[in-house]
């Protein structure tokens, strides 16, 4: 089990039961578990949605869509069954927060799923775990079984006349199915490719029924919001960015790990105080603020609040909360290559620009980093990425294009340093196959 980190600056909401033995249902109940859902049962759907809206909770998967609004889009009347779908396909490099939730607090996901079900009138929820998180499935399944045994799931939950079931499922190992519609395809047993939108899942989702699909952290936040009250939750964060967020700090920080900090928390402070600065006292070179798909920030650009709006203003994205810290030993060309290797590998292959673009970028960057680059390659890499951006079927193409553009734009000199067969200034010979450290390091 990964070592948990802690820091006095943390505001523990979602992570408050981490390390407390809350996988045990009795322990979970002791720690205020299954309280919010009872209240939700009493108050009814409109009240739940009003609470969610007031909390300013925004989706923790990366796009930051207001959760209360998402739930309110689901039609009240529907011929087809409605569903709640928990997106636990946490795959964005640099991100490892949902993993901890499933590991330490699975019941908070179950409780949040039931509440979402009550809010939209669904009777069935699915908890979809990333394929590589197969080892967490046992924990999740035990939690679901315990909840059934208690009468919290199944017919007439908590003694009410409301039925609710939960099914858990793992993926088969594809980043692409983190995209909500691809996840639904996968869950339906099909090839994991995204769907054409509209219609959006709230109207036509899983098996054609109206579906609310939320990130696991979002769902885990729900019971806490009801328990503490939406205003109190909202006030923890910054304007229009309610609550706290699990930030996953990785790379060259002194104390990597997952920290729960208020939305809007200063990035510089996060790295230098919470995470203890740069390892070995080296210089910070750059920060990827929200998972590998978000454009890189220079060391000079990190004095910003970490919420959706402020990071957006700085030209990047808050994304999934994966903060990757890069010190001055990192070759940015190699880092760009490592990033594009991931997206090339994970492209589902459906649309031309993503399928061919990532493949081309990977080939070019491989040759380039190995010392075979020509001056025109630098512009060509940028040209390719710019011609993928905004033109792919789903956001994966953007996820590959955005960081690539930023690397070339912000570190052009490093690209130029690789020209003419010069050895990589960062100690790796052009022939070296060794790549930058893996983006995610869970200790």
């Amino acid at each position, binding site marked *: 089990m990964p070592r948990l980190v802690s820091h006095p600056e943390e505001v523990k909401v979602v992570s408050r039961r981490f390390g407390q033995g809350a996988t045990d249902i009795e322990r979970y109940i002791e720690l205020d578990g299954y309280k919010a859902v009872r209240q939700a049962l009493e108050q009814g759907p409109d009240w739940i949605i009003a609470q969610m809206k007031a909390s300013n909770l925004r989706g923790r998967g990366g796009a930051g869509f207001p959760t209360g609004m998402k739930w309110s889009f689901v039609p009240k009347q529907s011929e087809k069954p409605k569903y709640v779908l928990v997106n636990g396909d946490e795959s964005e490099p640099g991100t490892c927060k949902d993993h901890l939730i499933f590991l330490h607090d699975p019941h908070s996901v179950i409780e949040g799923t039931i509440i979402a079900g009550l809010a939209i009138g669904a009777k069935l929820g699915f908890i979809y775990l990333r394929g590589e998180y197969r080892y967490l499935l046992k924990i999740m399944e035990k939690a679901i079984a315990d909840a059934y045994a208690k009468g919290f799931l199944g017919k007439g939950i908590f003694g009410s006349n409301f039925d609710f079931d939960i099914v858990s499922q793992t993926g088969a190992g594809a980043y692409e199915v983190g995209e909500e519609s691809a996840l639904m395809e996968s869950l339906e047993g099909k090839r994991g490719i995204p769907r054409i939108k509209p219609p959006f899942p709230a109207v036509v989702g899983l098996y054609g029924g109206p579906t609310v699909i939320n990130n696991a952290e979002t769902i885990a936040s729900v019971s806490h919001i009801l328990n503490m009250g939406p205003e109190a939750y909202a006030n923890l964060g910054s304007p229009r960015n309610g609550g706290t967020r699990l930030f996953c700090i990785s790379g060259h920080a002194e104390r990597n790990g997952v920290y729960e900090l208020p939305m809007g928390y200063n990035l510089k402070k996060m790295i230098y105080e919470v995470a203890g600065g740069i390892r070995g006292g080296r210089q910070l070179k750059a920060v990827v603020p929200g998972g590998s798909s978000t454009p890189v920030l220079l060391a000079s650009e990190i004095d910003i609040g970490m919420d959706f709006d402020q990071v957006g203003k700085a030209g990047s994205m808050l994304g999934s909360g994966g903060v990757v810290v890069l010190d001055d030993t990192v070759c940015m060309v190699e880092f760009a290559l490592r990033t594009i290797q991931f997206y090339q*590998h994970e492209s589902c292959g459906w649309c*031309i620009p993503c*399928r*061919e673009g990532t*493949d081309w970028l990977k080939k070019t960057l491989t040759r380039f980093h190995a010392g075979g680059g020509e001056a025109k390659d630098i512009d*060509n890499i940028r040209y390719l990425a710019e*011609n993928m951006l*905004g033109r792919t079927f789903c956001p994966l193409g953007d996820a590959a294009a955005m960081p690539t553009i930023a690397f070339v734009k912000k570190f052009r000199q490093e690209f130029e340093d690789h020209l003419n067969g010069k050895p990589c200034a960062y100690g790796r010979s052009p022939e070296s196959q060794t790549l930058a450290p893996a983006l995610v390091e869970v200790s």
Partner: protein
Amino acid sequence: MADVTLTVDGKTITAPAGTLLIEACRKVGIEIPAFCYYPGLSLQAACRMCLVRIEKIPKLQTACTTPIAEGMIVATETDEIKQARKAMLELVLANHPLDCPVCDAGGECELQDMTFKYGAGGSQFVEIKNHRDEQQWSPVVFFDRPRCILCYRCVRVCNEGMDVAALGIQQRNAGSVIAPNDQTSLDCEQCGMCIDICPVGALTSDTYRYKTRPWEMTHVGTICTHCGDGCKTTLGVRRSDDGMQIVRGDNRDKSGLNGEFLCVKGRYAFDFANNTERLTQPLVRQPNGEFAPVSWEDAIQVVAQKFRAARDERGGSGIGVIGSTRITNEEAYLLQKTARSAFGTNNIDHHRTTDYVRFTRALAGQDHRMAGISDSISAPAIFVLGNDPTEQHPLLAWNLRTNVRHNSARVYLANHREIKLRHQAKPFVQISGNSYGKFVNFLGGASEPFGEDAAAIRDALRNEPNLLIIFGSELRGDAIDAMVKFGLSLPDAKFACLGDYVNSRGAADMGLYPDLLPGYQPVDGESTVRTEYGSRFPRQAGLDMGQMFEAASRNELAALYVVGDDPVERLGVSAQALRNTFVVVQDMFMTATAKLADVILPTANLYEKSGTVTNTFGDLQQVKKAADRAGVRSDLELIVRIADTMGEDVRTLVPFGKGVRADMGQSRGAQSGEADRHGIWLAAHDLEPKLSPFDPNAILDEIQRLVPGYDFDRIDLLAGNSQHVEPDGSGLVQISQTASRPDGVIPSGDTLFTSGTLGRYSEKLNEVEVFQAKKSMATAG
């Protein structure tokens, strides 16, 4: 739906709400490029070629998935969009091999055309392209992965259009690959639609690959010679050592009543024409019993002398004539006319595969009750009783599937087998093979123990206001009457009766019957035909096919003229039976009948002649000569020459030379195609002089004039469209014996991979049949 108005490139467009932007634009002449978008198939938005700018939406949008909305302002050809398309092409071409000079699709490739238009001529891509070796998936389908641009058209046409689902996608990213769902080969109907629909040369056919360049072929639109659906096929022909050879069959221009559809036979089974066993010299049996090749003049001389002698010595009743279901209407008409007016006999028959006579009689006096095949793609409800359209009428099956998919048509099905079309049917009722008659009576109200599903069908059918009733040859005699009677009790039901071969219906309509004249007129009644056919034309009905062979075995048949049929094989006629009959066979091959002949005249097939055919739905279509083979003659020519040599007046037999010369001597632009159109106009208005007795148009004039029901728009027919003909059975009702006359029906029993005699000589069809049989055995065992 209500109309909405939008602006595209400054043009105001009005179209029904919900129309896809790409379609709305195409209707007003704004072409938005696309690879993956394909009308009629599900949407993909994968190729990203159709990106357009819609005001107030931040990203470029795919026109193929965007429904139009009121007030939408769209730009389709800005610099930004052109750049996006150019970049998309650069990306596709990054891994696409530039082997265009040898690629089958070179010259008719959508990727080439698109690259030409958007000018992605240069590439920054210097890396090695991803390569995979070519694969063979079936006797007819090859796959070249590097050329594939992953538009998924093949996967969709197989899943959605064919309901076969033989293709899927494997792997992901740049390694994504179209692959057979069944290991490494295709378990399917081998229709080749995947090849046809491929925008590039990724899927190629064994019959065409690396054979020729598209521009080296002449493309001729004619009618497939196989089943009774009568699909239009565009044959690509090329000069060969002994004529013009067919190298490709498709219908990529989507013309004709089948749109783009062709089945395995239409697409590949033209190769019988190139079979090495094809006869190309007239053969006359010598006193030693062996065949010897002779000149055409000699062969025809022998035939004419013997026929004339037989007629003059034994009377017309001593001659028998058997026609074919694969000759043109003109040939069938001329054959019976020659038999009746020149030979003086009514001993005329053909291989009957369904009872058109009873069907026509049942609908006597009704108008517009016979369905055209196009009705099957638009009718709101269809009842199919008997037959297996997937195997025997592939176009009908395609139409029904399309109708269900696009229009949610209701298909009701009753059959003694679990036929594949049951997937589209709700409900499907399985009945026993000998209970079709009872089932029809049950529909009409009789109480029979068919169970709840059958009762549900019956009740549902009774509430269908526009039902299309299609039945196979399982229905005979009184069952046809009962079926039609039931249908006529519904408000606007239409009917179709399924026969097996390309001109089965035409053979029937043209009067290849011993008791019926063209248009189902009784042979003993008064008609224009009677007055025109002259004094030799007997009043009494002649012998049917079985009776002819019985007569022969009794030495009562002096001569037998078999045109394009193999009754000896089908009926198991013994050589003994024909020992005293002079047998003339016109055929392409040494069939069982030909082996017993005294003279064999090698003939052209439907792809090598002109004329018209009528499909089983009564859709009349023009056949155009595409291929040519040295050493063979059309049946039309041979009939005329035999009659001529017998001393008949050819001008009476074939009304040629009656036209008025009216070209005014104007020269027409050959390059513009105007000459062709002008030619059609002249022919349609009977102004083109028919200078030859071998011109089928001369016979068509007479058919149009004398055959009841063959009342059609000549110019429309000659322009390549189908004309629906509907003979009236009123004459049949007057004669009581037609109700009890033997139908003589022998269904061909063909499957998707067989096609009577022709099928046996199609190597490709045989290869596919064996391949699929092995597949089925592997699946079963």
